[in-house]
């Protein structure tokens, strides 16, 4: 997994609430498994049906085409469990989404892939969005070492991330490695549980 320590880059505002995974990565009939998933990101908002760009969509405008951070409304990532919503953001170059809240499944999927879903209280989120909207250069820095966000005016905002998620992101540690270290305990649980709930194990 790609590590995350300090990311500095353009922050793009997309401040609708409840941006769902169908909006982030629509089902496109006929899309091949090998197609560029970065092009799928917000496809119905980014492109006309003929494939040409919709000029007023934020990610089609300079400087946001190069965005590394997305500032979104509450409950970002609601809807389906599709992990390609995360893959598409990453592939586009987004490393951090900042929102007042995230949908549960998206939040977990993001961490599994090295995308930081950063929750800010509403007041700070609004202030950050305003600062970004008014800045000549809407550049922010997300520092996971210090848990500190710096807005385009140089103002520092502290944030929190669950401790184990922070460690995993900084070290690029995949959760499966943590799980597989406990294999003996899984063995022991199943051996014990077969006695307690034998009907669960269909291979008897």
């Amino acid at each position, binding site marked *: 997994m790609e590590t995350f320590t300090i990311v500095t880059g353009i922050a793009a505002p997309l401040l609708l609430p409840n941006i769902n995974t169908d909006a982030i990565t629509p089902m496109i009939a006929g899309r091949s498994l090998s197609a560029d998933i970065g092009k799928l990101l917000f496809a119905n908002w980014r492109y006309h049906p003929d494939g040409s760009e919709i000029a007023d969509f934020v990610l089609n405008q300079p400087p946001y085409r190069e965005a590394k951070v997305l500032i979104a409304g509450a409950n970002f990532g609601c809807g389906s469990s599709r*992990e390609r919503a995360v893959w598409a953001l990453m592939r586009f170059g987004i490393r951090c989404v900042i929102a007042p809240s*995230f949908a549960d499944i998206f939040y977990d999927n993001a961490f599994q892939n090295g995308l930081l879903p950063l929750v800010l209280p509403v007041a700070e989120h609004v202030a950050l969005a305003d600062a970004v909207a008014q800045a000549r250069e809407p550049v922010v820095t997300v520092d996971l070492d210090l848990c500190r966000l710096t807005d385009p005016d140089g103002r520092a905002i502290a944030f929190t991330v669950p*401790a184990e998620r922070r460690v995993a992101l900084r070290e690029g540690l995949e959760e499966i490695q943590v799980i597989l270290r406990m294999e003996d305990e899984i063995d022991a649980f199943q051996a014990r549980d077969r006695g307690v709930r034998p009907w*669960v194990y269909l291979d008897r």
Partner: protein
Amino acid sequence: MTDATTLIDKIWNAHVIRTLSDGRTLLHIDRHLIHDGSSRQAFDGLRTLDRKVRNLPLNFAVVDHIVSTLPGRTGESHPPGRERIHALRDNCRQFGVGLFDVDSPRQGIVHVIAPELGIALPGTTLVCGDSHTATNGGLGALAWGIGTTEVMHVMAAQALLLRKPKQMRITFRGAPQEGVFSKDLILHVIGRHGVSAGAGFAVEYAGEAIRRMAVEERMTICNMSIEFGARMGIVAPDDSVIQYVAGRPFSPTGRLWEQAVAHWRTLASDEDACFDRELEIDCSAVRPQITWGTSPQDLVSIDEPLPDPASAADAERCEAMRRAFAYMDLVPGCPLEGVPVDYAFIGSCTNSRLSDLEAAARVVRGRKVAAGVTALVVPGSMQVKAAAEAAGLDKVFVAAGFEWRNAGCSMCVTSNGDVVAPGKRAISTTNRNFEHRQGPQSRTHLASPASVAAAAVSGHIVDVRKLLRG
């Protein structure tokens, strides 16, 4: 503090392999369902790790999302889906996972077949790479949707690392009126409290109205937990669940059955158990519900006018409502009743079980699909299809002008050839009315199977109670 525990506590506690010092739990997963839409990269991940599927008999695969539902369909019928169906077949063959393939009489939507085959059992933990997995909560399984990375984790370890969610209980009081179904009740909860009210929570649905519901109706309630923001939704198993589970292909038998039933009877929240949040709804006050916008919370009762964005709680909500009105081509303050529909779709993991088709057929019987309406019934599984045909429901639908299809996700998900044409309006028994959900520029209204059937034969959105009385 008391020692009282909730239903969710009891199931959770029985599955704890280890609690980590950071508060996370390694939880045993009893059942894992795999489908064609979200599993390919997970199998690739297993290969990268050089791992096998740890407990093959606890893993089941099925094709549902990208398979054609047309009569006589095969895995080749929807060319864009071919690649993924072949990938799933190859992966299942290579790793030894049992697959309900296109031609299997047990094939169907993953959340329909898991209960139907006795794969989902009360008190089990069950996961699937699909957000509507909580459907299985209707029979008392603690079930939730996961992403592809976690699909790989479950295959490798038969366990997941997670934090225990907060718990909410929603108590359903009173009895619903004629024409009001479990779909209307869960939509009402979402409309009233919003699509993120359940975020961070696992929800137990309780109360006399839930107790009186058939198991399939409870599945519809649990199915839409995710539209309320909650990953997990569950109803305590009772006699009707035990009856439902008995005799299914993967259900326990003999002495194991007796043991299982004794365990299942312990699965209920203690009377003095505490929840982090409690909500209550009065079912007797709920009228048939229908969505007007592009979020499941954009909801009205069928006989009430559309809301005015100017009356929204805040500027953000006001803007979202204006956007939804523009997308849906509707006008604030107008009634929804009378708005013409182009498509009527009965299907999906929310409402494609036998009782859903029966409720729709009661409205359709002796009537015709209105001119200009494309109407589809897509049974949730091939077994539902066969049962419906044995009851003669297919004849009712076909005589009225509905298409009668094979099982799959169909028009819910735009990935199998069944789509709503651009700019057209659909009324659907599905769970999501997002922009472009049923096809590019499609417009979706969510409602119960009876309400969808009523619109199909009327040619426009209508109060189903008028047809039931008629």
